[in-house]
């Protein structure tokens, strides 16, 4: 369970966390978090509400200082080299952080200018096309649906080609169609080699997207491995014959006609 499927000895892990500690007052949120994510992989941090997922993401994205332990992105320590870390990462937080007053295009240009890329306007156009937002590009983000906002949010995070992307509960609050859109996006990014750390409370989401899964509970990782490895922890499967009924989700998707 500790083997690294894709890391080569010459590359540091994309994300390396050792013994991370964080408390808020008397409340210990992280009590020795360990996590290693290989470059180019999708890693899911699975845990219930309040397990410390968001706190871990906030420390990794330099928004919060850890009380103890060590965390590094591409070999750069988040506490001592935050500027280098910010060059490498992008954060898509729990709430879609788009500017509602600006249009989709303007939002993307803004990020491009702040990341000092060569041609922010052209990159914005490319991103709009890639995320199916070209039509909506000149409309204010306030007029977008939840799924469109999330796509714009993720598109903004990708401007400047960060090598590590944090997605904090990327599908919370989205309807099933929008959730599937986000999943498709994550798979495309993974195929292009972006390292993704995503947090989720939905087991199915982790199952759908992640190469490896860590279960965060009580401020520590209690289990880590591939889906197969996690399944092996359970008692062996028995064969039973049960009439398969469609889930409500399958019904919903077939009725609204977007199940593909």
């Amino acid at each position: 369970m500790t083997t690294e499927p894709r890391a080569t000895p010459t590359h540091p892990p994309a994300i390396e966390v050792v013994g991370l500690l964080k408390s808020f007052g008397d409340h210990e949120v992280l009590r020795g978090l360990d996590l290693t994510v290989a470059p180019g992989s999708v890693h899911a941090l699975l845990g219930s509400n309040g397990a410390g997922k968001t706190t871990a993401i906030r420390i990794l994205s330099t928004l919060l200082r850890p009380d103890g332990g060590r965390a590094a992105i591409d070999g750069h320590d988040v506490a001592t080299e935050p500027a280098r870390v910010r060059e490498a990462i992008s954060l898509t937080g729990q709430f879609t952080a788009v500017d509602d007053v600006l249009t989709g295009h303007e939002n993307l240009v803004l990020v491009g200018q702040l990341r000092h890329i060569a041609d922010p306007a052209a990159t914005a156009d490319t991103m709009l096309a890639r995320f199916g937002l070209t039509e909506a590009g000149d409309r204010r983000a306030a007029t977008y649906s939840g799924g469109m906002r999330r796509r714009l949010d993720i598109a903004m995070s990708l401007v400047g080609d960060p090598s590590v992307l944090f997605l904090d509960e990327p599908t919370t609050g989205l309807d099933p169609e929008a959730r599937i859109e986000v999943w498709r996006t994550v798979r495309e990014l993974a195929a292009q080699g972006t390292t993704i750390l995503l947090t989720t409370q939905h087991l199915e989401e982790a199952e759908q997207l992640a190469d490896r899964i860590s279960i965060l509970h009580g401020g520590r990782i209690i289990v880590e491995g591939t889906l197969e490895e996690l399944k092996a922890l359970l008692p062996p499967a028995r064969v039973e014959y049960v009439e398969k009924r469609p889930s409500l989700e399958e019904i919903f998707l077939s009725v609204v006609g977007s199940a593909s």
Partner: protein
Amino acid sequence: MSTVLTDTVVLTRRSLRHVLRSPDTIITTAITPIAMLLLFVYVFGSAIDTGDGPGEAYVDYLLPGILLITVASGVAYTSYRLFLDLQSGFLDRLRSMPIARSAVLWAHVLTSLVANLVSLALVVLVAVAMGFRSGAGLLAWLGVLGIMVVFTLALTWLAVVAGLTAKSTDGAGGFAYPLLFLPFLSSAFVTTDGMPGPVRWFAEHQPVTSIVDTLRRLYAEEPLGDDVWTALAWCVGLLVLAYALAMRSYRRRTSG
């Protein structure tokens, strides 16, 4: 260093767009003081004796107070916009990007300065249309501008504190109400001579009176006296205090 500048410019342009696209912010910032100007000059003005000798129009007396009220009502939008950035996670997005961190707050402050100067210009234009006249030279007007800039910066940094510490959008803008009330307890509308003892004492020792009197003397080409130092001390002192408080609230809000 150049990234501080370019990042600040980029973010300032962004929040100026917010100002341009929310007409209500322009309306409340400029229209309310203009309405007060009209009300006080054309309704109450005839009953107010400012004792400044014949020929002195009440609009001349009133304008400085109205200018301060313009700024006090204008800065509330800075709290509001900053609070929305915090609440929406937009500030977190910016803070996790490789940009100059001071650019985030300075962009809001510069936007406030630009927006308030535009509102102030509108108010002055209306005052001119109502008969405000001044023979003051460029230097005196630069003095007026300088005081207004420092005053606006001071109130804006206070607005930043309010925006960073607010728990709701209502709370974010609410800090401005006491500021709007202060000019009424000063020499902004009437001279302090007729006020009862304790009120008069308060009026003569609070910042608005010295600032208003200094502005009035600047464009009336009168000798400035000591008031100018009192006014500057209040403005600069307030600015330094507000800036320090804003930095502290920023650190608190973004750590822990």
